[in-house]
């Protein structure tokens, strides 16, 4: 049954992205009507899949990178759904949900089915650490997506090309505001993740290595987002450069979550 969920989830996400794409690029009326209901169905199905996985394997799906990917895909979809509900702007969904689709596809392809979980991962502190880190990464992803949209619109307007991007995306100011809101959230959530991570680390591991590449990477990302928050709030940094930094932050986070976690980290992998 878990296998079926695994196959079906990427299909759900594919149909979701395809519908949002049809609405954005081809202006299909059916797609405009269907996209939000499909998003709700995908989120509900994904939540059901996560609950079923937790029951079957007797642990929350946060113990391996590919389990984390599926939770991240779900977090991104839920966060985007809240943004869509609050702002009533549905044009940005295609770009954000594409990232959720990517995470889910990677997860479905490589996730392992196992009930074996190291004892140290059963701590409540670990739960808080992982939850805040995941939500932080979802915020980073969304900030990256909005920054990407900002840059696309910025370049289209600078190049005096008034195509579909110009026509469909919200204003530059809106995209900038959404990016910054996501950046603040990412910074706060990463701060919480690092704080609880350190407390948990000292309790769970006898002689932790504070120079673990994963740890250094996370601190770097946190510093970068802190820098973005400070420069924006106190020095009024705005526009293209800030957006490039936000995208760089997202790419570094992705690198940290995948390459560093898999190949370089010593204690920060549990499978």
């Amino acid at each position, binding site marked *: 049954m878990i296998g079926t969920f695994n196959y079906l989830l990427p299909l759900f996400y594919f149909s979701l992205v395809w519908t949002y794409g049809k609405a954005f690029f081809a202006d299909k009326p059916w797609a405009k009507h269907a996209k939000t209901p499909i998003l709700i169905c995908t989120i509900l199905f994904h939540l059901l899949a996560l609950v079923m996985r937790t029951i079957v394997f007797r642990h929350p799906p946060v113990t391996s990178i590919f389990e984390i990917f599926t939770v991240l895909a779900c977090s991104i979809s839920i966060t985007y759904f809240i943004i869509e509900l609050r702002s009533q702007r549905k044009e940005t969904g295609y770009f954000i949900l594409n990232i959720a689709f990517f995470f889910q596809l990677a997860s479905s392809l490589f996730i392992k089915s196992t009930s074996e979980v190291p004892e140290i991962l059963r701590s409540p502190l670990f739960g808080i650490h992982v939850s805040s880190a995941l939500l932080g990464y979802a915020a980073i992803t969304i900030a990256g997506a909005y920054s990407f949209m900002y840059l696309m*619109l910025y370049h289209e*307007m*600078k190049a*005096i090309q*008034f195509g579909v991007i*110009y026509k469909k995306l919200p*204003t*530059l*100011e*809106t995209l900038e*505001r959404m990016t910054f809101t996501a950046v603040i959230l990412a910074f706060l959530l990463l701060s919480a993740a690092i704080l609880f991570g350190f407390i948990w680390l000292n309790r769970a591991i006898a002689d932790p290595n504070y120079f673990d590449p994963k740890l250094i990477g996370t601190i770097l990302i946190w510093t970068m987002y802190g820098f973005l928050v400070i420069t924006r709030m106190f*020095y*009024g*940094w*705005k*526009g*293209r*450069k800030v957006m490039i930094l936000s995208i760089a932050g997202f790419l570094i986070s992705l690198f940290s979550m995948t390459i560093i976690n898999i190949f370089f980290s010593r204690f920060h992998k549990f499978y």
Partner: protein
Amino acid sequence: MNLLCVGISHHTAPLDVRERLWFSSEETRRTLPLLRSLGTGECVLFSTCNRTEVYVLTENNIVPSEEIKKILIAQKSAQGKVQPSDLFTLTAGEAARHLFRVSAGIDSMVLGDVQILAQVKEGFSLANELGTAGFFMNRLFQLAFRAGKRARTETEIGDGAVSVSYAAVELAEKIFDDLQKKAALVIGAGETADLTATHLRGKEIGKLLITNRTQERAEQLAAKVQGVVIPFENWFDTLLEVDILISSVEVNRYVLTASDIQRILKHRGNKTLFVVDIGVPRNIDPEIKNIENVFLYDLDNLHLMVEENLQKRQTEIPKVEAIITEILAELTHWYSSLEVNPTITALTQFMENIRREELAKNINRFDPKDRELVELVTKRIINKIVHAPIVNLKSGKEISLGDRLQKMSAIQKLFGLTGPHKEDSDAE
């Protein structure tokens, strides 16, 4: 009966002729009663900057178009200046189709014009107020409003700016969230500067600063758009606070260079600056478009944008025509359902069906020898019931056509002789 449209537009006459037949609402009030006497009492007249049109419902197929033309010309004392041949005449379905095309904005000089629907509504409102728009015109114009509304919501016929001044404002709206929180500086007080400032005011720009070499002209424009006049020698200092800069002055050298902007940006805290150069020769150094967070557009860019928008609107025409054909079919269906004879036949048939059904259910209760009599009596009852409505429907001479149509519609609705009419939600 027939629908007749007589009018003048940019397709049939030049501006100096058209303007002579422009009717104010007061003149329309005076003219409608005269037009009413020609037809059946149902007529609507509306005037816009590019057209004046009269819609009349006539009693028979004799078309009094020449009389209508004479009345219009005489009412404006334009004899000799406007010839009857400057006006066009359309009848029946073509007249209705024309009204729908006008309402949808595809007959306008500026394709997809959004103002026209409001002007048609205004004309209809006036006719309604004067009692010259009856049952038929009501239906016709409600459908016209629906055509206009659907064209705007279901197609992109009205999308994108089609004037340089509006294109500038539209671009600003793609950068800034809320123009009410923004400040704009307009350098110059010529026609394009005036139009752009007016559009900005229309978008409720937060602060509108006006500067011009001739202070008096700046003051005139500022009074018109509720702006604030800045002395010409001081405008550069305002760049620290403005978000939008519109420049339209005659100069021999740039009023703003890239190094000026670089210097100013340091003190603006990286705030985005949107610059529109609508001057000829150009007022702003084109190099500034390479500066980050500065957006510069010149006349050529804006013309290109307008041209692209017009082309896009052209491609939407078939979609609008399809909507119009659909609505025209609805009008035709409704109109043909109001013919007298089919209505009488439907009414008699309806009664006869009831009689037969009831008789079939209850005939066995009667003695066989009385059954023929029952048949006869029930037939007589039915005939007597339908007699009065039939006489009423057929005697149309003493009442207006509109009233007769209304009666037929009422009978059809009361007895459910036709399917339910789709009521319009576009009513004013």
